């Protein structure tokens, strides 16, 4: 594909001893395309070079429409938000963002979201594993309800959780106005992310690789840790990152069960809402920009990690 790859193959050919059969760097098609599923990191797809001569290539008009759409829907509002955040200058922004209540809200948000993301990474992988590898009655039903928390209006989720864990809890577990309440609510709405990104990779995974590990003496746990997990890691990471990004911006599902107690359970989105209500738009915009930065950094990190693993596994070109 690239001249680099051709060079390296030429080097391989000259380096290999000719007396040995088949070692001449012969380029064979990989028959087990299915086994390559491991590299798809859920959200990333290999970038293809633009080639306008090809059928189906994107014309300038198409590029124009995409750019315009992204500008109007995404970039323009974000620019307006940033402008609002800095409307009282850098000092105003800094003052807004370093207000103790603002810092507390951001800290609660990031802490709770990180815990939720980590729990999701484990349970989501486990759920995906069970759904792909095990057969049980009602599997299709379970598979279908995975997406339900995501599809449900988040305020409905909040009421659902409040009726179970609220002051009138039928099971006598009261999480109302606690951080555990926040965590449960966020776990509820972010359930599908890891499951849905790991599931396809696991379906495509080459079972023979696990059998090979077993034949070499590896226990099930060793096989999982050293062979399966590295294959799933990009997908787990991608799902975890998406769950984290979703959790830091969540409002509806935490608004009732969270209790909105400053420094305790008030998350950034609730703080923003509060600042708008008491007519402090700069404070609201400043914290929003902070959330935006965190979300953006998360996605950026994901892309970097995903493209690194992808490069490693595709260096044959």
């Amino acid at each position, binding site marked *: 594909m690239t001249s680099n790859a051709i060079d390296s193959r030429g080097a391989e050919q000259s380096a290999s001893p000719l007396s040995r059969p088949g070692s001449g760097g012969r380029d064979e098609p990989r028959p087990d395309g299915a086994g390559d599923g491991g590299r798809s990191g859920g959200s990333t797809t290999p970038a293809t070079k633009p080639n306008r001569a090809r059928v189906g290539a994107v014309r300038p008009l198409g590029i124009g429409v995409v750019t315009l759409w992204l500008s109007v829907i995404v970039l323009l509002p974000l620019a307006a938000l940033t402008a609002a955040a800095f409307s009282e200058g850098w000092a105003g922004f800094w003052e807004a963002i370093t207000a103790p209540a603002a810092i507390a809200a951001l800290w609660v948000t990031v802490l709770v979201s990180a815990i939720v993301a980590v729990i999701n990474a484990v349970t989501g992988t486990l759920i995906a594993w069970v759904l792909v590898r095990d057969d049980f009655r009602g599997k299709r039903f379970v598979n279908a309800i995975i997406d339900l928390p995501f599809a449900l209006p988040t305020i409905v989720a909040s009421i659902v959780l409040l009726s179970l864990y609220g002051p009138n809890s039928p099971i006598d577990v009261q999480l109302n106005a606690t951080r555990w309440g926040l965590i449960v609510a966020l776990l509820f709405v972010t359930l599908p992310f890891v499951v849905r990104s790991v599931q396809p990779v696991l379906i495509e995974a080459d079972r023979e690789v696990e059998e*090979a590990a077993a034949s070499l003496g590896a226990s099930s746990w060793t096989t999982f840790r050293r062979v399966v997990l590295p294959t799933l890691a990009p997908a787990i990471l991608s799902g975890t990152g998406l769950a984290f990004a979703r959790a830091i911006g969540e409002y509806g599902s935490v608004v009732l069960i969270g209790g909105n107690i400053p420094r305790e359970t008030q998350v950034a989105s609730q703080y923003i809402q509060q600042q708008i209500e008491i007519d402090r738009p700069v404070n609201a915009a400043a914290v929003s920009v902070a959330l935006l930065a965190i979300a953006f950094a998360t996605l950026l990190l994901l892309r970097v990690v995903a493209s690194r693993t992808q490069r490693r*596994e595709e260096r044959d070109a």
Partner: protein
Amino acid sequence: MITVTAARKHYGSFLALDDVDIDIPSGSLTALLGPSGSGKSTLLRAIAGLEGLDGGTVTIDGRDVTAEPPQRRGIGFVFQHYAAFKHMTVRDNVAFGLTIRKRPKAEIAKKVDDLLEIVGLDGFQHRYPAQLSGGQRQRMALARALAVDPQVLLLDEPFGALDAKVRTDLRQWLRRLHDEVHVTTVLVTHDQEEALDVADRIAVLNHGRIEQVGDPVTLYERPANDFVMGFLGSVASLGGQLVRPHDIVLERDHAAALALDAKVADSPGVITATVERVVPLGFEVRVDLRADSGERFAAQITRRDAAELGLREGETIHARATSRSTVVDHDPALAI
């Protein structure tokens, strides 16, 4: 020595192994040969412990391993599609079995270097499997399997995914490797040429049963039935009996043919046939014939014989089987 006794395996209603008994001597290179669905891979996987049996036992070097998981059978397994650990370098792939056994680093490094040398991959230590060709990946997989010093090496269609040239090279290389390493090796293949080329013993399987076990020459020259005969080389049906096409002699003189045929025990007799086509195949010539009974068959004769006979299409000729011919009574139920 691997001993499999009365092995049975069902997949739903499909009977993959039907009371299979086989002994695989220590140090041998045995091929399990058969068409797809014959149970050869199931048998191999049952020896490895990757497949459980519904009945029967597997013994490796006197130890009953029927209830043991693959981890504790002392095996090395090589898969058709390499089953490489894609996220590990060649070195880490080969070292895997030793690393998880927590052997000393120096010992691992030495062993891996030795094995990479043997399989011809020295200098490739730091590559990833994706950067290797198919043949190289399979040799890496072989080194990985040999690293744990297995009592038996099990190969499941190891060259099936490779192109023809690499396949021939690799199997000769495997043969030489086996002569060096002497580990008891079982190889599954559906390719009779591969089995004849590599193995010192062949077990022919069909419909979950073993049809015949023996060395390549015995199987080729004295097949137990016409399935084995048909699977190990081409056959012609001569007067209701199966004969190797190169064991058919063509004569112009009917009387001479009868006289010579009388000396051959169990011969199918002299068949008078019409030449339909003469096809030069380089060293040999294939003659497509139609017997008076309407049965079509082909004879394979040398170029010199063909030149002496001066055969032309449409001529009548007399065919008989030679004395050293392999003749099997044709059972229509086993027809292939």
